[in-house]
């Protein structure tokens, strides 16, 4: 009992978590490519046997078409235009989504004012908005950037708000009892607590941005990936259409990898179930 002299429990030297061996990391990286490889091989086999319709090119033919587009510089130029559009749209949309989410999350007044209009607007489909945005913002780049900034706002907003609501109130209370002020509470408790959910929202928003890009570049465009696909449609260059589809897929993969990197860096403290 209390009469025992207390030996402060000798703390075992903290075992540094060893980085997984190189071989293991390589194996996982290879495994991650297997799914994609199966997809490609399947496509090659089915297309070369005419199982996907007589018009569908094989991956090989698509690669040849892509090489032509790259050599003439058409592909890079238009990808660059589209990427810049998405970047601008995301810069606006993510800022707005995060800002509105924080506002609604931190203050009941903010939530009361912000939430209803956001919920109403988020149901509007981009396809229906595209012509309206053309009327409002003109035929230039602005209407496209506006459309791309609109849609990604909502996944982020919803997840920021849900993330903040999910922060354990007891942690907030104990931080306050430690003398943490409002700003410290936001920075040390609420934002980190909401972060896993916020990153889920970010991932969804980035995906949505690429989808809306396709819609935005369907009409009144002279540059961008949408132009390549529209022209190809015009001249029935099916292999070129597939090149653009593959580019969309790769850009999607790239953005997802970016968020994964963020998650690994920011959520290293987490001890969630990682799967077997």
């Amino acid at each position, binding site marked *: 009992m209390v009469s025992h002299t207390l030996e402060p429990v000798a*703390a075992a030297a*903290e075992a540094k978590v060893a980085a997984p061996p190189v071989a293991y990391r390589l194996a996982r990286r290879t495994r991650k490519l297997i799914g994609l490889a199966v997809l490609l091989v399947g496509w090659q086999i089915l297309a070369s046997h005419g199982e996907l319709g007589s018009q569908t090119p094989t991956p090989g033919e698509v690669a040849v078409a892509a090489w032509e587009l790259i050599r003439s510089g058409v592909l890079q130029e238009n990808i660059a235009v589209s990427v810049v559009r998405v970047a601008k749209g995301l810069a606006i949309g993510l800022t707005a989504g995060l800002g509105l989410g924080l506002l609604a999350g931190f203050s009941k007044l903010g939530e009361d004012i912000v939430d209803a209009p956001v919920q109403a607007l988020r149901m509007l489909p981009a396809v229906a908005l595209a012509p309206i945005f053309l009327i409002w913002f003109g035929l230039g780049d602005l209407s496209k950037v506006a459309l791309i900034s609109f849609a990604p706002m909502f996944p982020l907003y919803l997840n920021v708000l849900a993330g903040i609501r999910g922060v354990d109130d007891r*942690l907030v209370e104990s931080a306050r009892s430690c003398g943490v002020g409002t700003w410290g509470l936001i920075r040390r408790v609420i934002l980190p607590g909401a972060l896993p959910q916020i990153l889920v929202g970010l991932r969804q928003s980035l995906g949505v941005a690429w989808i809306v890009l396709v819609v935005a570049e369907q009409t009144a465009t002279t540059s961008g990936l949408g132009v390549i696909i529209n022209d190809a449609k015009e001249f029935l260059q099916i292999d070129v259409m597939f090149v653009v589809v593959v580019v969309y897929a790769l850009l999607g993969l790239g953005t997802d990898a970016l968020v994964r990197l963020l998650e690994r860096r920011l959520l290293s*403290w987490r001890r969630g179930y990682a799967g077997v």
Partner: protein
Amino acid sequence: MTNSVQVRRAGRHFKDHVVLKDVDLDIAPGEFVALIGQSGSGKSTLLRAIAGLDPEATGDYAKPDRHAIVFQEHRLLPWSRVWRNVTLGLTGTDLRQRALRALSEVGLTAHADAYPGTLSGGESQRVALARALVRTPGLLLLDEPFGALDALTRLKAQALVAQLWAEHQPAVLLVTHDVEEALLLADRVLLLADGHIAESYDVDLPRPRQIGHPRFVALRRQLLAGLGVAETEEEL
């Protein structure tokens, strides 16, 4: 003010459920007071009111500016390293040094850079103790801090608290439902029942306390009777 803590007419109700009514409570500087009471009797509610965490509690609360609280759950921020949890809310230079000093008092210096998720329950609770100690509190509020620990770890944690209290001499208010824990640690045991302090017992036993001491046994019987538990029942 001669008392470290002076509570007058503390009150709190949820809707029409009155939990606290007219609670008066004094704690002398350096005094160790245990608060016992049945589950749901309002012990935590009173503690939160004293800590200033409950804006809806009524009454007068005088307490040292420097006070700290340890809850039943450790409530460490899982995304902050142990030492950053210890200094949460503090400003100034050499925060890390101060954290390390506090962590050495609870024997956890080696875990300073770990995340709380890697600690055991007892270790986490000791970090929470270090977080309280680093503030050099004049008043230490403990809300069943050992309730979730296994028996052996609980004994060690109780001994640690006794040792730290003897060294730093803060006034302590320990909420517990464990009668023996109260008698091992406290100078005085208060019984909370029906929304007020129903009984006060002076624990006139020399330290370190022995569970087998006849006076200990007698007090234990008294406290259990106050809680409405017959002793044989408790021993089953």
